């Protein structure tokens, strides 16, 4: 199995032990976690919404396997409100990974403890061709670390800004892969809540990987927290209504719009003005949009939950059956059996970061042990 072979090897094990471990992993993996598409097919045969699906019985433990010493920290690939993502290299197998580092103090200060713990749990649980994979977590006195695959092709955001806008078929390709990922998450009662081009990476072949599960959450009924990215937030979130999966389908509409137009439908100079526009709900479709996509977007970017496609009785099936996607063979797309519109011009496997923007590096405080005032919040890391 490719993914077991790609594991960053933990410290202090002989090759033989590692192989045994891998064997075990491979076995338990197959038993514990059915292939996502089988799973989904099963789900669709049953009634997707009537049977509240449980997440697969998979180990929730992510700590204890890796330490900072297992990796060389290299350049920054991205920064956020509470930390940054580094390219790293395993000192054991020489392969490249990405480590997301979050500052505990900042998480606590921004009151994001619950979201951060949800992020870890969701990442540990999900497994899908279009979702980022997390290998493990660890922490020191100041930071928490999440070891993930290094996705070499950069952000869809960078590609979009460079191209200004995507041709109709290209936007359709990325939208279709995003839909499969959302369908999988929703099938497991996980809402994502932060869809945007910045959170979609392209792998070496140009397939998408959705990353940053900072707001992903398993929700059985409804949730209330105001979160997301202003341009992409659904009206029901702004008006403090209880919400669920419907918010991801709204964001999908905004994403498709941005891919085709190069800008978002409700942009304005301040977030408050953007929110007002979202509540007014008036969308102007550029004349070069295909009529089919205008029809689809008018059904995604609507405040009326009885009209929002994806939120209706047949769920994501309605979207997949929409005329704009008529050419898409969904099974082949899921199997990555379709040529991507763009192959990132990188050399794979050598830690090529040419497609990631440069960020100012800062003095690293990683690896400090000792007094940790926030220990109680991050037991599982």
């Amino acid at each position: 199995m490719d993914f077991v072979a790609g594991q960053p090897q933990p410290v202090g094990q002989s090759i033989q032990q590692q192989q045994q471990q891998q064997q075990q992993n491979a076995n338990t993996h197959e038993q514990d976690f059915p292939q996502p598409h089988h799973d989904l097919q099963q789900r669709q045969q049953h009634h997707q919404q009537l049977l509240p699906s449980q997440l697969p019985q998979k180990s929730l433990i992510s700590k204890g396997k890796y330490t900072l010493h297992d990796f060389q920290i290299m350049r920054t690939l991205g920064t956020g409100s509470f930390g940054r993502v580094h390219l790293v290299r395993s000192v054991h197998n020489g392969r490249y990974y990405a480590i997301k580092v979050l500052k505990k103090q900042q998480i606590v200060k921004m009151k994001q403890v619950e979201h951060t713990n949800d992020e870890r749990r969701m990442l540990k649980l999900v497994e899908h061709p279009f979702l980022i994979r997390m290998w493990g977590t660890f922490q020191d006195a100041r930071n928490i670390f999440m070891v993930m695959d290094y996705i070499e092709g950069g952000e869809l955001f960078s590609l979009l800004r460079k191209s200004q806008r995507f041709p109709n078929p290209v936007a359709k390709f990325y939208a279709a892969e995003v839909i499969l990922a959302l369908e999988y998450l929703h099938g497991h009662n996980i809402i994502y809540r932060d869809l945007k081009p910045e959170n979609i990476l392209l792998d070496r072949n140009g397939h998408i990987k959705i990353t940053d599960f900072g707001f992903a959450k398993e929700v059985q009924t409804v949730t209330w927290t105001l979160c997301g990215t202003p341009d992409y937030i659904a009206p029901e979130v702004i008006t403090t209504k209880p919400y669920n999966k419907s918010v991801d389908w709204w964001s999908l509409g905004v994403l498709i719009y941005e891919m085709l137009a190069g800008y978002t439908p409700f942009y304005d100079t301040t977030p408050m003005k953007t929110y007002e526009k979202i509540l007014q709900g008036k969308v102007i479709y550029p004349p070069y949009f295909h009529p089919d996509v205008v029809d689809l977007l008018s059904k995604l970017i609507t405040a009326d939950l009885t009209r929002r496609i994806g939120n209706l009785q047949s769920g994501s099936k309605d979207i997949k059956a929409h005329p704009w996607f008529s050419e898409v063979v969904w099974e082949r797309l899921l199997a990555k059996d379709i040529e991507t519109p763009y192959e990132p011009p990188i050399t794979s496997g050598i830690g090529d970061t040419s497609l990631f923007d440069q960020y100012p590096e800062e003095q690293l405080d990683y690896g400090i042990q000792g007094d940790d005032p926030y220990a109680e919040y991050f037991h599982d890391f």
Partner: protein
Amino acid sequence: MVFSLSKESQAELQLFQNEIAAANPSDLLQFSANYFNQRLEQQRAFLKAREPEFRAKNIVLFPETDEPLSRPQSAQSQSRSRSSVMFKSPFVNEDPHSNVFKNGFDMDPHEQDAHQPLKEEQQHGGEKGSTPPLPMHFNAQRRTSVSGETLQPNNFDDWTPDHYKEKSEQQLERLEKSIGNNFLFNKLDSDSKRLVINCLEEKSVRNGSTIIKQGDQGDYFYVVEQGTVDFYVNDNKVNSSGPGSSFGELALMYNSPRAATVVATSDCLLWALDRLTFRKILLGSSFKKRLMYDDLLKTMPVLKSLTTYDRAKLADALDTKIYQPGETIIREGDQGENFYLIEYGAVDVSKDGQGVINKLKDHDYFGEVALLNDLPRQATVTATKRTKVATLGKSGFQRLLGPAVDVLKLNDPTRH
């Protein structure tokens, strides 16, 4: 997006500043370009000198590849200008791969138009001409995610606001006017609005003092009661305002850096409201309403066989509407479309020739028969007080629930 520069960056900038001060160049741009190119050269030479040392540690500083073809390709693509990304051609007619999607990705004439610039560019590899420019002010930078505090509205029962103080009728009216136009408040029901206003804290500030500072984390929203204030963005005055105006409302949604600095230009009396109080009032009312919807839907015989999930979806999709006393909500004999839950108020149910046959009030419902059947309305319902209803139409109901509606029809206890 505010981030502080790292020490290295600050040092680098300081160095650069010193250089400018020393050289006092007449052409600053050219000077800067030369200077940084030189810096880059220095740094690269430095790293190049240490390459063996890194190689010993198995770190590749300057990757070379075995595949000579991929190098020029990637170099080329990096040097290519903005908006000249080459998309592969599964999406064009003549491509052998165009059958990867069903029917291929044949472009219709409509689309052809839109992609003309891109095609030209592929042929000539030159600058493209006619892509419409991005709208002005569009922020093409990465966008920061935002998040409010996670609150659990089910445990607000024993919560009382910290700064609750009854306001006079006059004050209430004035404050309601001040905040009425803001979307954060105008969707509130009158009880919540009153509660919010009564939670405003009085604050006096002296002439010249800074009320909020650009870049600071925001927790409070302010309404000016007396006095005047000036607004500054990046130290430039952009606006000023007086009594009745308000500012800082984004802080009521989530924690984010203040967009402007506000300075008192006279002694001021302000009303302040903090986010946690506001969100708790909003969520509490939203949560109670939601519970009420759910309870009511549960008690409706026609919806009895609905799953919890579908009922939740129905509750989410309800729309609210307000009727004034005397207004008719549904009329006997009309074709029925909507059903109604009374959030608060009072209505009379009357039938031709029989007069008022029933009175309904808070948390009653009517018109539900219309959801499943095409019967005309059996009675007229008229508001006798100001009445707020939550309502959903048959078509929305069917779109939302689809086949579940047929199940409901089969089990409809009101039939037979």
